[in-house]
């Protein structure tokens, strides 16, 4: 580095002015790119009329109506009817009555969220479990046609999801797996396992074989060596892989919309159909989007170091 700092305009160590300019441009881009997301987060706190106001409102009086609407089903009543009711018990009852409406019950958002969680975690667990075993085998043993098998595993991911859904739809109809969580878990596991094998093979390849060999010499069996030596070393890689699988299942839409309709429906096909009186209930949609996106933002920050590996199937590692 000393050689670089001596020459003022080297690319290796950029001059302060060019750094500042680069910084300003990147920050400008970052701010523009984040604006759409901020707008959605803000829309969740708007009232229905503020959300569809023209010109669009940047400054508005925040309300939790969007969130209340997201979680409830409401019916419109006459003011007389509402006046006759006993006083509202909760703040959200009060909020809804201001709009001449009464809460009729919970909406479907919680069951959909639970579906997303169950299908997401179920398929992630299975994919990482199967993927770890297969990746270990590919990494440590000589498997005939290993390269072909690995390519086959990857190629299953190249199919357009809509194309895969056609025979799966027929198959699931025969097996009574249509619109079931189990069916979705199996499908997402199959999609995720290819990513898991490729990523985990990379992570396990990086663990020196000497550790296991020492353990084997000392009388460990293969499985003991895997469990006590390799897995503890691979734990970060396994965690990163798991998060990638979870994000895929969490975000997936094509299979979900084509193969589920109720029972097993996840959040992505549900969110666009949160309807109020007269079309999409934008504050509620925005509230759902916000709640749906928050875990992804947290995971992105957690994954920063491994992001590159994850998105390139382990092809780029640094």
């Amino acid at each position, binding site marked *: 580095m000393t050689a670089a700092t001596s020459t003022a305009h080297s690319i290796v160590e950029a001059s302060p002015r060019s750094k500042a300019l680069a910084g300003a441009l990147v920050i400008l881009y970052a701010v523009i790119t984040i604006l759409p997301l901020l707008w959605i987060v803000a829309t969740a706190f708007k009232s229905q009329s503020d959300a569809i106001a023209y010109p*669009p409102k940047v400054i508005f009086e925040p309300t939790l109506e969007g969130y209340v609407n997201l979680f409830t089903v409401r019916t419109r009543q006459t003011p007389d009817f509402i006046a006759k009711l006993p006083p509202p018990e909760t703040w959200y009852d009060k909020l809804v009555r201001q709009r001449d409406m009464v809460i009729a019950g919970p909406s479907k958002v919680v069951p959909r969220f639970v579906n997303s969680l169950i299908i997401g975690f179920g398929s992630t667990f299975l994919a990482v479990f199967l993927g770890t075993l297969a990746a270990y085998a590919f990494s440590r043993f000589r498997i005939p046609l290993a390269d072909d098998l690995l390519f086959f595993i990857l*190629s299953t991911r190249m199919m*357009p999801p809509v194309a895969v859904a056609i025979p799966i739809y027929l*198959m699931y109809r025969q097996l009574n797996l249509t619109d079931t969580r189990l069916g979705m878990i199996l499908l997402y596991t199959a999609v995720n396992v290819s990513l898991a094998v490729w990523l985990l093979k990379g992570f396990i390849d990086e663990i020196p074989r000497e550790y296991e060999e020492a*353990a084997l010499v000392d009388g460990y069996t293969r499985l003991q060596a895997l469990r006590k030596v390799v897995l503890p070393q691979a734990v970060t890689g396994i965690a990163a892989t798991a998060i990638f699988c979870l*994000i895929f299942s*969490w975000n997936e839409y094509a299979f979900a919309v084509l193969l589920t309709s109720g029972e097993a429906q996840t959040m992505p096909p549900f969110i666009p159909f949160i309807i109020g009186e007269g079309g999409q209930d934008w504050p509620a949609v925005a509230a759902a989007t916000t709640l749906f996106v928050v875990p992804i933002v947290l995971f992105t920050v957690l994954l920063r170091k491994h992001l590159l590996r994850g998105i390139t199937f382990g092809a*780029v590692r640094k």
Partner: protein
Amino acid sequence: MTTISQPDDATVAGMGEPARSRTTRRVRGLSDRTIAWLFVAPTIALLLAINIFPLVWMIRLSFTSLNLSMSYLPLRFVGLDNFTDILGDEDVWMRLQTTAQFVIWSVTFQVIIGFGLALLINRQFRGHSFWTTIILLPMMLSPAVVGNFWTLLLQPQIGPFNSLISLFTGVPPSAFSMTGQVSLAPWTIVLVDTWMWAPYVMLICLAGLRSIPDYIYEAAEVDRASAWRQFWSITLPMTVPFLMLAVLFRAIENFKMFDMVNLLTSGGPGSTTELVSITLKRAAFEKWRTGYSSALAIILFVTVFGAANIYVKALNKVKQR
């Protein structure tokens, strides 16, 4: 670590309950070969069941005239009729053209913006790590949710996008509709896709830039090569393999694009943004023409697979240079 370097008998024997040590004793006899197969088999079995078996079934169906809305009809084999229908259908060719244009333009913009951002971030200004994370957020989101909320942002009157454009150009916000106008809609899907995926290209390019060892630039500095010259003869050629990898991944993904566009424009107005995946979805899940759509799905798969193979070969050639 201590258990690894010196596992005495106590650690191995004291591994826990008797049940567990019984299992370990049983598997002690397994050879590495058996373990390898035991470990790989479940994954392969799952992929055979969920990917390959349906694929084979779909190939069979592609030779039939099966229509699920008339599934009481006996299964009739029609030979290659579905394939000749598709390849002779001008509409399908139009959809493929729309898709190709979408792929080409979105990937081009993503490469320009992504590579530009990577060059800037590589200057390592203060706080670059934080801002990089912010820039990366869009690509982590669900494409369907993205497509859905952009419809709000792009509404001619109530959406902020048109108002923002009007602020800079003076065109009234209700004068144009990004998703409803034939001339704009194809660019709208390119815009949203670029917003989402430029960070992807950026991240891969950044890895490419960081893989270039400093001493090469130092040598160029000694030889008094201009910054321009350094870019063209060091930076660019050494990042090209990474760039091509990014292009490969993005092109495949965008060729298959369904979710984001389905929610943003659902193929409209007319069929100006109807990508081939949307055509496939309509044939399979709205018109229920299973035989026909199976054939189309196979054509798409072969296209992706073939293009990817050719591209990987080109990529390897670049790497060798």
